[in-house]
C-alpha cells in the first residue's frame, strides 16, 4: 500500500510517461500537427490575443465577411479561460503564433491529465494508482496522439477530473478550511465547464453519475446536501461568491445565445429556420447523431486488432487495462466501484446511438439530447471511467493477503487462466500485432513473479514494471493508427499571424495558407463564405443575390462619398438598383430609412467618389478592430459610406458629437457629413460589452490564482 505521503513523488514521476509520450509524438523534432477544430480555434485565439496585446478587447472583426460580430460562434465562448493566458504571454515573448497555440493545447492536455491524477488519488487515496491510471490513459487514443487532439475533446475531458475530485472532497470535508477549499475548487471547475460552451457532454456524464448514485449509493446525495447546508451555514459569503462567479461565467454563453437569436446576425439559428427548414433551428437529426456515434467510428474488435483501420480518435486503449479488468473479476465490489462502473456503462450505451434504445429514448424525451452531436467525444469520458474503475479494482487485487500456499496456488491459477483467456481472444481475431501477445505473456509472468517473490521486487517497482509492460503495446500500435505518421501530414508551420496592416485598403489579415484548406474562413475580402457563413445579415443578402466578381470589386474600396441618398425598401429589395450601386453606376447610396434621404446640393448628383488611397481630404488616423477614426475635408455636404458591415452596435461621432448612422447599400455603414474639416469616429460596442469581456477574463484569472494559492501549500504539506 502506497502512502499518501508519496503523493508529490508520484506526481513528479508523471514526467516519465509524459516524456515517453513526447518521444512517441516526435516532439523532439518539432513536428506535430494540430488538425480538426483546432483550425478555427487557432485563428480565433491568435486574433483575439493579438488584439488583447494591443489593448483592445475585440468585439468586431472587420476582416471577416466584410465585418462581422465576434463571439457569434459558440466555439469562441471559452476564450476567457485562464489557461488561454499562456498565449498572449508567449506572443509577448516573441513566440510564433502556432507554437503559442500549441503550447496552450499541451497545457490543457496536462491540466486534464493532472485532474485525472487528482481524481484517482481522491477516490482511492493512493497516488501510486493515480500514477498508473494517468500513465495508461495518456497512451489511449484521443489523448495519446497529437493529430487527434481535437480541442473540443480536451475541453470536455480536462475539467472533469478536477470537478469530480473536488466534489468528492467537498462531500468528505470534515472541517471548515477543507470545506471552503473544496467548494472553491468545485466552483472553479464548474465555471470552467460552463464557460467552455459544451456543457452537454458534462451534463450527460453528470446525469449518468447521478443515476448510478441513485441506484447504488443514495446516501451520497444526503451527504452532498449536508455538505451544502454546512457550507451555507459556516461560510455564507464564500458560498455566495462561488454561486455568483458561476453565474458570471455563464455570461458569455448567454450573450452568444442572444446574439445567435438576433435577426441581424446570420448564425445556425437563421440558417436552420430559413434554409434547412428544420423548424427548430438547433435540433440535430437522429441520422446526424448516428454519424457521430461510436459504431460509425470503430468496432469492438478494432480495440485489439486491425489498428491501421481504426479511428485515431477513439479506437485504442492499452491492452493491459483489459487484462487487469479480467484479473479482478472476482474482487469484492465496493459501492464506489459500482457507481463508477455504472456511470461508464451508461455512457457506453448512450454512445452507441441508434444501436441502443437508451440514446433513442433520451433523444425522444430529453430535449438536451437533440441539440448536440459527436457522441464519440463520450469515448474519452468512457475510457476515463474505465481507467478509474480498473485502478480501484487492481488496488484491491494487489492488496489481497495470501497466507497459505493453497491460496497462492489458487491465485496463480486464476492469473494464468485470465491471461490465457485474453490470449485465446486475441488469437481468435485477425491482424493482432505480436506485441499484444507479448504483453499478455509478460503481464502473466510479472504477476506470477510477484506472487512467488521470484524477483523480490518492491511493490512500487512492480507497479512501475506493470506500466512499462503496458506501454509496449501502445508504443507499437499508436504509430499504426491513422494520423500518427507525421510523414503523411503536411507540416506547413502555419503562417497565421494577425496584424493591423489595413487602415484603409488591402488585406489586413495576412493568413497565407491556413490549416485544413479553410483559408477562406478568415480573410479581408472573404465575404464569400457560403457554407457555414456566420456574420451580418446585410452581407449575407448581398452574397446570396449578387455576383462574386461585382461584390469583390466593390468591397475592396472601404470609403465612398455620395452626393445623395435614395430610399430602398428592405422588405422588397430592388436588386437591379443594388447591382448598379455596387458597380458605382448609380449616383445614390441606398438606405432604408426615409429620414436620411437627402441631397448634397441642388445640382445634378455626380457618380460616387471612391477614395482610393490616403489623401489630404481623407486620412485614417486611428484604426483597430472595434473602431476607425478619420480626418476628412469636404467641399460640400456628402454621404460617406464605410464598406464595413452595419450592426446596431455601431455608433459614429463627428467632432465628438453623436451622429445618426445609417445602414447603407444593404450591408454597410453610412453617415451624412457636413462641409468642412471633421474628425469622424466609428466605434463598436458599449461599456457592457467590455465589462463582459474584460470582467469575465479577469474573474477567471483571479480564480485561477486563488486556487493555486490555496492548493499549492496543501500539496507541499502532504509531502
Amino acid at each position, binding site marked *: 500500500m502506497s502512502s499518501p505521503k508519496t503523493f508529490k513523488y508520484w506526481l513528479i514521476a508523471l514526467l516519465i510517461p509524459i516524456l515517453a509520450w513526447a518521444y512517441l509524438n516526435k516532439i523532439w523534432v518539432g513536428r506535430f500537427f494540430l488538425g480538426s477544430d483546432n483550425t478555427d480555434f487557432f485563428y480565433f485565439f491568435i486574433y483575439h490575443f493579438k488584439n488583447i496585446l494591443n489593448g483592445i478587447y475585440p468585439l468586431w472583426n472587420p476582416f471577416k465577411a466584410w465585418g462581422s460580430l465576434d463571439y457569434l460562434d459558440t466555439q469562441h465562448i471559452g476564450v476567457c479561460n485562464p489557461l488561454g493566458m499562456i498565449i498572449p504571454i508567449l506572443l509577448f515573448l516573441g513566440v510564433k503564433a502556432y507554437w503559442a497555440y500549441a503550447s496552450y493545447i499541451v497545457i490543457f492536455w496536462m491540466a486534464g491529465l493532472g485532474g485525472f491524477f487528482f481524481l484517482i488519488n481522491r477516490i482511492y487515496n493512493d497516488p501510486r494508482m493515480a500514477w498508473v491510471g494517468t500513465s495508461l490513459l495518456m497512451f489511449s487514443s484521443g489523448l495519446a496522439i497529437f493529430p487527434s487532439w481535437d480541442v473540443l475533446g480536451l475541453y470536455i475531458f480536462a475539467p472533469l477530473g478536477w470537478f469530480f475530485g473536488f466534489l468528492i472532497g467537498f462531500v468528505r470535508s470534515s472541517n471548515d478550511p477543507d470545506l471552503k477549499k473544496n467548494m472553491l475548487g468545485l466552483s472553479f471547475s464548474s465555471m470552467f465547464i460552463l464557460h467552455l460552451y459544451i456543457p452537454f457532454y458534462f451534463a450527460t456524464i453528470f446525469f449518468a453519475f447521478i443515476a448510478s448514485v441513485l441506484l447504488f449509493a443514495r446516501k451520497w446525495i444526503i451527504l452532498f446536501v449536508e455538505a451544502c447546508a454546512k457550507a451555507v451555514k459556516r461560510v455564507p459569503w464564500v458560498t455566495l461568491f462561488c454561486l455568483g462567479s458561476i453565474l458570471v461565467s455563464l455570461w458569455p454563453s448567454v450573450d452568444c445565445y442572444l446574439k445567435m437569436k438576433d435577426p441581424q446576425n446570420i448564425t445556425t439559428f437563421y440558417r436552420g429556420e430559413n434554409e434547412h427548414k428544420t423548424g427548430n433551428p438547433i435540433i440535430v437529426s437522429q441520422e446526424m447523431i448516428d454519424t457521430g456515434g461510436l459504431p*460509425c467510428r470503430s468496432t469492438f474488435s478494432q480495440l485489439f486488432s486491425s489498428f491501421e483501420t481504426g479511428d485515431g480518435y477513439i479506437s485504442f486503449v492499452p491492452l493491459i487495462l483489459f487484462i487487469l479488468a479480467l484479473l*479482478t473479476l472476482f474482487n*469484492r465490489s465496493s459501492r464506489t466501484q459500482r457507481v463508477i462502473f455504472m456511470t461508464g456503462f451508461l455512457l457506453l450505451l448512450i454512445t452507441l446511438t441508434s*444501436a441502443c434504445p437508451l440514446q433513442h429514448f433520451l433523444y425522444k424525451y430529453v430535449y438536451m439530447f437533440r441539440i448536440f452531436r459527436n457522441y464519440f467525444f463520450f469515448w474519452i469520458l468512457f475510457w476515463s471511467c474505465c481507467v478509474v474503475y480498473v485502478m480501484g479494482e487492481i488496488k484491491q487485487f494487489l492488496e489481497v493477503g495470501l497466507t497459505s500456499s493453497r491460496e497462492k496456488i489458487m491465485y496463480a491459477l486464476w492469473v494464468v487462466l485470465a491471461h490465457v483467456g485474453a490470449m485465446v481472444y486475441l488469437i481468435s481475431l485477425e491482424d493482432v500485432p505480436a506485441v499484444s501477445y507479448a504483453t499478455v505473456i509478460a503481464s502473466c509472468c510479472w504477476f506470477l513473479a510477484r506472487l512467488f517473490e521470484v524477483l523480490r521486487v518492491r511493490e512500487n517497482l512492480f507497479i512501475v514494471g506493470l506500466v512499462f509492460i503496458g506501454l509496449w503495446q501502445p508504443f507499437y500500435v499508436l504509430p499504426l493508427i491513422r494520423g500518427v505518421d507525421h510523414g503523411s501530414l503536411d507540416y506547413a508551420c502555419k503562417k497565421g499571424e494577425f496584424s493591423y496592416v489595413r487602415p484603409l485598403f488591402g488585406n489586413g489579415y495576412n493568413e497565407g495558407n491556413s490549416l485544413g484548406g479553410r483559408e477562406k474562413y478568415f480573410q479581408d475580402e472573404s465575404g464569400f463564405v457560403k457554407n457555414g457563413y456566420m456574420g451580418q445579415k446585410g452581407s449575407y443578402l448581398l452574397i446570396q443575390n449578387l455576383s462574386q466578381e461585382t461584390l469583390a470589386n466593390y468591397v475592396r474600396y472601404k470609403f465612398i462619398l455620395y452626393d445623395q441618398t435614395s430610399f430602398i425598401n428592405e422588405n422588397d429589395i430592388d436588386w437591379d438598383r443594388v447591382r448598379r450601386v455596387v458597380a458605382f453606376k448609380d449616383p445614390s447610396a441606398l438606405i432604408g430609412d426615409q429620414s436620411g434621404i437627402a441631397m448634397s446640393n441642388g445640382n445634378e448628383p455626380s457618380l460616387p467618389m471612391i477614395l482610393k488611397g490616403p489623401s489630404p481630404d481623407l486620412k485614417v488616423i486611428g484604426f483597430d478592430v472595434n473602431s476607425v477614426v478619420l480626418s476628412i475635408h469636404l467641399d460640400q455636404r456628402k454621404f460617406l459610406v464605410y464598406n464595413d458591415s452595419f450592426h446596431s452596435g455601431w455608433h459614429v461621432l463627428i467632432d465628438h458629437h453623436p451622429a445618426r448612422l445609417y445602414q447603407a447599400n444593404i450591408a454597410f455603414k453610412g453617415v451624412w457629413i457636413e462641409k468642412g474639416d471633421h474628425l469622424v469616429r466609428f466605434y463598436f460596442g458599449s461599456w457592457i460589452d467590455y465589462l463582459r469581456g474584460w470582467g469575465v477574463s479577469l474573474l477567471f484569472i483571479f480564480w485561477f490564482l486563488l486556487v493555486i494559492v490555496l492548493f499549492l501549500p496543501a500539496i507541499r504539506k502532504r509531502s
Partner: protein
Amino acid sequence: MIEHIFNRTIFLWAAAIVIALFIVSPRAALLQRINTMHGNYIDCVREQGCSDTKAIAEAREYYLILAQLYPQYGRGSEMQGICYLLLKQDNLAIKKFQEAIKYNPDLFWVSFELGKAFYRRGEYSQALKCFQGIMTQDSISLLKKATLSPLTQFSDKTREGLILSLVDFVTEIKLRSYQMAVGCRVHQGDLTQAKNMVSQELNNQQLGGNDFSVMANSSLDKDGPRKEMLSWIDGLAYSKPINHPWGHLIQPGREILYR
C-alpha cells in the same frame, strides 16, 4: 438488495453484459458503421494494381462488415480475400475465398482466384479441382451465376452493356481456367492428361483458347518450349485478380443492390 447482488465484480460485469446483449443491436451498429464509411478505398481495391496498404486495410474492414451483415451472399468474404491478395497474404486470402464459396457456391470467379492461390503455393491438385470446376460448367450457366441482381431494374442500354461485360468476364475466366489447368497437369508431370485436355479443346473449341491450344499442342512434347509455356502460365498465377465487372454496385450504404 441491489448492493447485495452485486457484491462481486463478476456479477456486475455479467449483469452489464446481459443488459447489453438484450438491448444493443449489433446489426444496427454494423449498419451504422458501414453506411458512414467512405468509398475511396473500395475504389482503390477495385482498381487493378492498388498498392495503398492503408486503403486496402480499410476496404478489408468494409468487406468484413459486409460479410457479417450478409454472409450468405459471399461477396464480403470474396472481397476480403481480394484485399488479402493485394496485401500478399495468400493464406488468409485462401481462407476467405473458401468461406465465400462455402456460403455461395455460385461465385465461380472466386473459385478461379482460389485456384490461382493454390497454384502459387504449388498445390496443383487443389488448384486443378478449382479450375476444372469452372471449365466443366457451360457458359450460359456461368452467365446466370454471374448475374448478381435482376437486370430488369436497369434501362435497355445499361442492361446491354452489363450483359456484354459479363460475357467477356465469363469468357476470360473460362479461358484462364483452362490454361491454368494445363499448367497444373504439367507441373504434376502428367503430360498425357495435359495433352488430352489440349486436344479436347482443339476439337471442341468450347473454352475460346484456340491459339493457346495450338501453341500448347506443339510445345508439350519438347522440353524448351514446354518450359517457356509453363513459365507463361506461371505468370498468369501472379496476375491481378479478375474482378466481377459489377463490383461498383457494392458501395457503402448500397450493399444489398446485388441481392
